[in-house]
């Protein structure tokens, strides 16, 4: 494996980690807000809080890891994306900042009841952030960032008038709600909280149909946007078929209310297959036509140093993450609320 391929695999894996845990967080924020507005809060608010409180900061680090790693391994990517994305990147940063801060205020601050402002900021950003971040995937298909007179520019008309952009945004939104609801089914079940389980099971089933419809829509829009990429995807069609099978099995289990842990594993596999299938067929480009992993990879010594640092880092990171999950996700007493 070349350094470029190793690096992008590492980064893509971390972005996948972010996709899963941030979706849980974003969707949960939205459901939490929705439950306060509709008065169902006492049913599901608690389990959401119990899960989110200890892990939210970790979620953020996954994103930072991806950005810093991308810039480090592929410095040219920093140049193109950095120059072109000043405005959307800044807006996403502001949303992330508001979300993080207001989450902390409402969880750790001292006030009675639920503050609607905090919850509202938290719920709304839960949908706006994935929408904003997903547009970067749309831009990476090419045709939107261009070079003229040696300056990087971005064509907003091409961007907004493009059905592909919108299909990606829709896909991001429904996936967030779907992943989150599927996870909460598992968590509520572990907590033996029947009332909450029924509510989130409803959400999960409700969002499953739109998820698959949006996936198909985005899939076929790629053909219009970037036929070369689409052809690559067809060449590895088995990954997308596997993804669909995992989806069907996961929904079946939730529908029958059985083996919910397995069901959530299948959700991870569903998105895993689609994610790596999409990523693999996107190669060798990070930005279609302009940045390829082979040309823009940093110098060899730096790549070796960063990959070594990464391996050493994993040796610390994996046991720590396991400890965190073991204490707060797989510890039945904590999940049920018997210990703090």
């Amino acid at each position, binding site marked *: 494996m070349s350094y470029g391929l190793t690096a992008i695999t590492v980064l893509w894996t971390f972005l996948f980690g972010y996709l899963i845990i941030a979706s849980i967080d974003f969707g949960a924020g939205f459901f939490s807000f929705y439950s306060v507005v509709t008065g169902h809060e006492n049913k599901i608010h608690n389990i959401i809080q119990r899960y989110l*409180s*200890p*892990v939210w*900061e*970790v979620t*953020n*680090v996954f*994103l*930072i*890891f991806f*950005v*810093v790693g991308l*810039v*480090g391994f592929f*410095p*040219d990517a*920093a*140049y193109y994306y*950095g*120059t072109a*994305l*000043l*405005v959307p*990147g*800044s807006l*996403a*940063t*502001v949303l*992330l*900042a*508001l979300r*993080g*801060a*207001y*989450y*902390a*205020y409402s969880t*750790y*601050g*001292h*006030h009675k009841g639920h503050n609607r402002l905090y919850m509202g900021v938290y719920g709304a950003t839960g949908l706006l952030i994935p929408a904003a971040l997903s547009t970067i995937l749309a831009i990476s298909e090419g045709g939107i960032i261009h070079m003229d007179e040696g300056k*990087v520019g971005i064509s907003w008309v091409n961007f907004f008038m493009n059905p592909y952009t919108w299909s990606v945004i829709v896909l991001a939104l429904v996936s967030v709600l779907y992943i989150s609801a599927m996870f909460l089914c598992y968590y509520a079940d572990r907590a033996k909280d029947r009332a909450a389980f029924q509510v989130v099971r409803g959400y999960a089933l409700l969002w499953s149909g739109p998820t698959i419809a949006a996936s198909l829509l985005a899939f076929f829009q790629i053909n219009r946007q970037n036929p070369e990429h689409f052809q690559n995807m067809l060449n590895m069609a088995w990954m997308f078929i596997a993804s669909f099978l995992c989806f069907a099995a996961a929904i079946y289990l939730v529908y029958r209310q059985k083996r919910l842990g397995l069901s959530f594993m299948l959700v991870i596999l569903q998105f895993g297959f689609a994610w790596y299938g999409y990523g693999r067929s996107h190669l060798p480009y990070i930005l279609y036509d302009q940045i390829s992993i082979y040309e823009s990879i*940093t*110098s060899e*010594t*730096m790549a070796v*140093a*960063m990959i070594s*640092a*990464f391996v050493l*880092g994993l040796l*610390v*990171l994996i046991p*720590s*993450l396991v*400890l*965190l999950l073991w*204490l*707060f996700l797989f510890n039945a007493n904590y999940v049920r609320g018997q210990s*703090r």
Partner: protein
Amino acid sequence: MMSTLDPVLMSRILTAVTLFVHIVLATIGVGIPVMLALAEWRGIRTGDKHYILLARRWARGFVITVAVGVVTGTAIGLQLSLLWPTFMKVAGRAIALPLFMETFAFFVEAIFLGIYLYTWDRFKNKYTHLLLLIPVAIGSSASAVFITSLNAFMNQPQGFELVDGVFTNVNPFLAMFNPATPSKVAHVLASAYTTSAAVLASIAAFSLLRRKDHPYFKKALKLCVISTFVFAMTTILIGDFSGKFLAKFQPEKLAAMEWHFDTMTEAPLIYGGVLDENNDIKYALKIPYALSILAGNRPNTEVIGLNEFPEEERPPLMIHYFFDLKVTNGVLLVLIPLMFMLRKRLPGKKPYPTWLLIGIFALGPSAMVAIWLGWFLAEVGRQPWIVRGYMKVAEAATTSPNVGWMLLLFILLYIVLAVSAVKVLSRLFRSKSAEEEIAQLGWDPEGGRGQ
């Protein structure tokens, strides 16, 4: 119109504003875990529960500052690529390693802080909970080490060759461990511990000033003030090394911050003053030989003057004031704790005289101001370079015309964050006082020893 403003200037201001906000929170983020460990350890070792409560109450406020620290850090992390794309593209080839390692430090800190906050009564052995602070403190201090080594590189770049505008033949370790790294890292870490101890001392002094005479606050005050003294002494000692470093490696910064124009031995140190249009110094306090001593420990050390450098490569002269004010604050951070430690020998009968408490209350703000001044001194003093000797700031910035609008957006964001954080923190502080909590837990007001 906003969009006709110079993107370079706007990028500089936006970077400065973001770092202005981030640095206070980051500094506290580095130092508070150490103070938490100190208090909890004392509590466990002596069996005095007041110290445990102290750690618990600090931790409650700390999560809020961490949260804002994390979000402003995320902002600066993204802004480095958004505002300085050319810098990241060129310098990234040499210096990506520490930035990348920093994210692992963040991971460790975030994971163990999450565990620490939610497991106060979960372990049978009390030391287990205390041990969780070790990875938190190591993680946050390591992130300071890595980011500071990056900043050191910008001042003393090495470990690469510049060929056709591309950094090649890179040695990432030489780049990280450049001549600026040792003194800078040490000074940044020590100043972070000083500031955290000083901020916590201010809080304790504030409670005592409000006539809360509970032993709990006196213990907190003593712990924090003595820590401030020790850390501040260390900071000043290392600050002296920073001065010697500058004299040797970055003489134009030292000369600009001292208004030292002509190369000479037995150079005096200028404190305060104003410059007239001929660059003559007026109304300043001159301490004979002191600059030579700062630069090389001996009065006959030769100190290079600003006139040796071409005009367009001289840093702005206002950094003189940043330095002088910072040193003033540094001296206060040692003198006031010293008076507290000698309070029993001071004239007057009260063990906690109001003027002393007011002085201690001022320690926190004074340390924070010192941090700001120190960073502005270091960063503005690097002008006009972004990577000293290789890349000027003006070549590094984005060419996007919209930076002005983004500056406005972020200023708004920081105002919202600052106002709401202050509100939440002050509500946290007031909602349940420490005395109430001690009474509620049914503890002996003296704190008690053993179980």
